[in-house]
């Protein structure tokens, strides 16, 4: 009889084990960001047409030579990109050259966006099918990459740039010298 009674507790014991495990796993940090595996690698070859009439397009060649630059993946339809616009302006004011890649965008929308939120870019390439975006290991918009003077990807920032991210990016640019 006791044996009979004992199996009745088995489901509860199994469940308690699962609940304990799941509870433990919930408290563990889980990495939600998809990091690029291209960090430390050379920027792949690409040539993108201008995203709108006002600025030239972007190519791999534009990143080579002189000083480290920022590559900013953005789009006019992206709300966090509006939030990061003032930080990009702040970076530009510090003398950083920012080259943009507009993802799946239209020229008139790009022009509108820049007219409304300011233009921190020296060049903007138009990536209509996210080809370059995927090639450099970016999985979302916006993302910002530090590219050194040899055209090697040194650092990836995922998500919009907040005010406290600006010094971090400046330090990374310094490190990439």
């Amino acid at each position, binding site marked *: 009889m006791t044996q*009979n*009674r004992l199996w*009745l*507790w088995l*489901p*509860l014991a199994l*469940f*308690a084990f*699962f*609940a304990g*495990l*799941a*509870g*433990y*796993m*919930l*408290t*563990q940090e*889980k990495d*939600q960001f998809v990091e690029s595996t291209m960090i430390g690698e050379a920027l792949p070859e690409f040539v993108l047409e201008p995203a709108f009439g006002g600025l030239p397009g972007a190519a791999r060649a534009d990143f080579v030579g002189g000083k480290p630059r920022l590559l900013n993946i953005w*789009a006019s*339809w992206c*709300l966090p990109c509006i939030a990061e616009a003032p930080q990009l302006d702040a970076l530009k004011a510090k003398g950083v050259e920012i080259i943009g890649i507009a*993802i*799946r965008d239209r020229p008139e929308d790009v022009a509108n966006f820049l007219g409304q939120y300011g233009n921190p870019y020296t060049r903007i390439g138009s990536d209509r*099918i*996210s080809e370059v975006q995927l090639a450099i290991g970016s999985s979302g*918009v916006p993302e910002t990459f530090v590219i050194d003077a040899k055209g090697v990807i040194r650092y990836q920032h995922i998500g919009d740039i907040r005010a406290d991210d600006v010094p971090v990016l400046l330090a990374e640019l310094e490190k990439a010298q």
Partner: protein
Amino acid sequence: MIAEIGLAALWLAAALAVLQMVSGGFALRSVEGAPNPMAIYARPAAVVQAVLAVLAFILLLYAFAVTDLSIKLVATNSHSMKPMIYKLTGTWGNHEGSMLLWVGVLALSGGLLAAFEKRLPERTMGATLGVQGFVALGFYAFLLFSSNPFERLPVPAVEGVGLNPLLQDIGLAIHPPTLYAGYVGLSVAFSLAMGALLTKEVNPSFARVMRPWVLGAWVLLTFGITAGSYWAYYELGWGGWWFWDPVENASLMPWLAATALMHSVSVLAARDALRTWTIMLGVLAFSMSMLGTFLVRSGVLTSVHAFAVDPERGAFILGLLGLYIGGAFTIFALRAGAVAEGKRFAATSREGALVFNNVMLSAILAIVLLGTLYPLLTEAFDVRVSVGPPYFNPAAAIFAVPMFLVMAVGPLLRWKEDKPARIQFEMLLVAAVLIGVIALVSFFGQFPLLPMLGLGLAAALAVAAVLPLKGRKLTRVPSATWGMVLAHFGVAVSLFGMACEGAFTQERLAAVAPGGTEQVGDFAVTLQSVTPVAGPNWTAIEARLAVSQNGGEPVILSPQARNFWSPPQATSESALLTRWNGQLYAVIGNQAEDGRWQIRVWWKPFVTFIWYGGLLIALGGVLAIAGRVKVDVKRRKATAMGDARRADLEALGAAAPVPAE
């Protein structure tokens, strides 16, 4: 205003769930013949609660229909440019909305139970409604405290940020609501099981009340899984029909438990055996539904079905899980020993066969559960693993093969006790078909073991499924038996489709220049052109493939590689050519440097039988429900007529005869 009314309805419904729970609890304190005066509120509370929860869901639907961008959920999950049908389906294409749908269906089924079920003793009914109220309360708390679907934005958004393009599909319109209705139907079975356990009234009449709920939930789950499998097949563009993804497993596990429960509740109804086992499965089936919800929404496992991933919500659901499942298992452990033992039976009897298959189903359930949770276990030790078909297929087959064999002969056995010699002829026939087909297939080619076994078992099962009809007058066979025959035949059909897909699929991956032709099986596939096309919220490149079977008239297939904006995402839209004996499945890939296009084409013989089989299984369930309901209505009418006659006789002053039943 709409959002505020919806929120108010939810709060009111939660308050009524408290009333239902308390009043249901008082029902346990009533004594025979004298119902507790506090117990009368449970039924009306359940009905009104159902109305309020459904109202809240309708209001959210309306907010999505008119794209009310002042509501956070609409702004983050919808877009004014989206086609109307996808605006509506977007209501449940996100965490909060789908939770509201879940709660709405939960309340609705509780309300239906309260309004229409009059067969159970009031004590058991009160306890059942009390448990149902307790379960609903937890989910109301979850919605109101951590997933409020009606939350307003401080400033209305200018435009919504869209919907996952994979979810812009008609499959989404039917697949999740069907599954939810199934999961939640199991909640009624759970509440009934707990109610019966609390009052120790585990008997055939309780089983007859529980059976339609289990059958209904099982039919919906079967249909939902079938539809979900087909959706993944054509929408994900990978050519597979089952991926053993955690979310798929989350829907399969309750189905396995419900299948076992459905059979065991039938034994309880017909033979008064398997009492504790039925209760156990009732708890287990709903536990699996809740576990699925937890796995999908807490983000502890990675899956292609990414939902709102939020550890805080995960903790909340885990808390609910601990409360309900932990509580139920505790009550089970304390009470189940006190439930009187049911009727005994011999090993070779229909009950014996059903018990064997119940154990096999539970073993498969354990295999799937273990495989699904294993990554969680190893991740606790910082090892990332992914468990896939190489584990699931053979491990499940170890138990599925004996199960199918017993399933072939089980329905032929008599209740209580039988001699295998009596069904000698049938057993030999089934064995001959099984061995014959396997021998025939292995004569014609080299195929993997499992598909070959599958072909043999499918043929044997198809024959065995109709054997119970042998020697019976077909017009007099009850609908429930027809349902069983059809469902078992459906299993054979589905198994045949799976085995053919596994054994005979032909695949061709090639880079083709426009004008080029590739051969797959009997089909010549010519790439005529590749052109850009645009939809309301996507752009795509579309290939025109002219497909000609054995040199016949060509048919045009147009697979697309779509790019959605807001949010940006690329999807592959497969194009299918369906023939009675299989499907041609085509996808277009990238363009190569030299201007050629990657084309991937499969010929999958009889693959459609997988889903035809699923539909047959579900249809069998529908027939069984119809049969049970018909009998029930007849019985009720007869009782009512008997009551009326007795009342007449009493009025005439004669002695009332004692009713036969």
